[in-house]
């Protein structure tokens, strides 16, 4: 149906619009995004696929912010070394952020770019939104 684009092709494509998936604060201040499917994406991507992506992201962020033995241990160790340990080691949160970046890149390459969409890593937007760039689908004819 729609012509598939690669990530390189998207560079030349014009941006039709951007959709923003806002934060979901119903569980408190933890980082969680709304899984509600935006109307603008209806024609572009499968609802389930999208929700799965957002849910995976939410799970990854939950893992980053999880309070548990590991995070307490890291916190205590850091305190004892006057936080100098973070000069050589990266925090658990940072490790998970790297994982998230990788996941988003992989999702873009495999699923979103072929459909003319691009996910922006929320960390680039201060963890406020998941920005989805919708590119003009030239193959169908300019809008």
């Amino acid at each position, binding site marked *: 149906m729609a012509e598939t684009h690669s*990530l*390189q092709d*998207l*560079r030349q494509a*014009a*941006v039709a619009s*951007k959709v*923003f998936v*806002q*934060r979901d*604060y*119903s*569980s*408190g*201040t933890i980082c969680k995004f709304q899984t509600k499917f935006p109307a603008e994406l209806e024609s572009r991507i499968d609802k389930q696929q999208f929700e799965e992506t957002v849910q995976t992201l939410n799970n990854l962020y939950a893992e*980053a*912010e*999880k*309070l548990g033995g590991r*995070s*307490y241990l*890291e*916190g*205590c160790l*850091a*305190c004892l070394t*006057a*936080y100098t340990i973070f000069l050589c080691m*990266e*925090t*658990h*949160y*940072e490790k998970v*952020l*790297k994982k*998230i*970046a990788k996941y988003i*890149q992989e999702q*873009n390459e495999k699923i979103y770019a072929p459909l003319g969409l*691009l996910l*922006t*890593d929320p*960390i*680039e*937007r*201060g*963890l*406020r*939104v998941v*920005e989805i*760039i919708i590119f003009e689908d030239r193959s169908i004819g300019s809008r």
Partner: protein
Amino acid sequence: MHLGVEEPIRECQYNQICTHNSSPMDTPHTKKKKIKRKWQVFPGRNKFYCNGRLMMAKQTGVFYLTMVLILVTSGLFFAFDCPFLASNLTPAIPAIGGVLFVFVMGMLLRASFSDPGVLPRATPEEAADIERQIDATNGPSGPGYRPPPRTREVLINGQTVKLKYCFTCKIFRPPRASHCSLCDNCVERFDHHCPWVGNCVGRRNYRFFYLFILSLSFLTIFIFAFVITHVILRSNRTGFLSISVFLDGCTVLEVVVCFFSIWSIVGLSGFHTYLMSSNQTTNEDIKGSWSSKRGKGNYNPYSYGNFITNCCAALCGPLPPSLIDRRGFVQPDTPQPAAQTNGTGACPSNQVQSHMCAQDQCIQSTKFVLQAATNPLLHSQPVILGGGAALQAKTSLGGPCSTLGPSQPSLPSSIPGLSCGGELMAVRDSEIHCHHHHQHFISPEETPSPPAALPCATHLGHHVHPAQLFDPASQDSLHEDSVRGLVKLSSV
């Protein structure tokens, strides 16, 4: 600490440097701008040191006073009291004192220099999207219709929490976040702005602040106790009051400083221990957000239930990274001020490897140029509504606004003529001083805008024949300012 996107940025960086070197001769026409780091274009009122690694508030005078007091008192203690105590009692005293002192200084510096959890401001598209959503919720407005204040309600753990819209940052503030009027930033889990530390205290540096005041209270008690011990021991040995005059002066100074510090610091530590164990911020406590006096079913939805978990979460929980990328490079393709025609010369084609970074640039440049050209007023509205201080748009809005405001309360960075923006901003800028041991500046609650401001906001916020509101002469400068504003906003 933007580790997720470090590689693309590094690659962009490499390409940018390449381009820069390849054309060493800058002609006036190309006007190649030096590549800036994001901290250099940061919209808030902060000071940065060490090329963006350290970050503080604008007024740092009191912080230097704190440093001087701690250093001088501790220095006098180690120089004049410790030799006597080490030889007559135990060398463990200076050792423990030393450890305490190092810990205090470490925590102070960490609290002062780290990012408290500043939320970056919304990009123009985000702001536009939110505006659309707000308009959709509020419905069309007629003349004289007062739109409700911009709030969203959220149910958190059974408690209804109101999320307020920040006019400066163009975002709906997350729960517990607040806008610091001194630093002009929204800060996550905003506790207070501490002038003694020279920074806001928020999510990322609360634990350092708490450990600082806790260890400082131990240090002051320690020094006080052992100075008194020293005096007593000496006077026992050599007879009453036969201490050298010089030593006397130092001792008096130490005792005085410690005595007054103890009352305030120990009290503050106690207060913050209470706050931490109930998982409240100073802001919430002052406002009585979760006090049972407000209502029967009022409780703190963020508390974990028991004080141990609350304390552990605050002190040993995961430390989130900074959301503002201070040391990243400003993407050169982001809109340049209207005066520079070919300002995008810097790096139009570093799209080779880093698809995120490169596409962003390509996309941004195309989009902004198109938008700036076709719809200047859409972007100038955020400038007017609240970005006055941040974006320094100095144009004067014509007729409609000047007829509205009866009195123009002054802003810290008041801009004459921006009357509507001024009123909306001024509501936020009334500072609340709490009666506390230290003066903590707490960002004010965003009370509903005064009626005079609202019709203005209505005019501006609802794209209703906006062209009629601006005289053509100011439109060009508005456009220029809006694009300049876009540079700042998009550089986030």
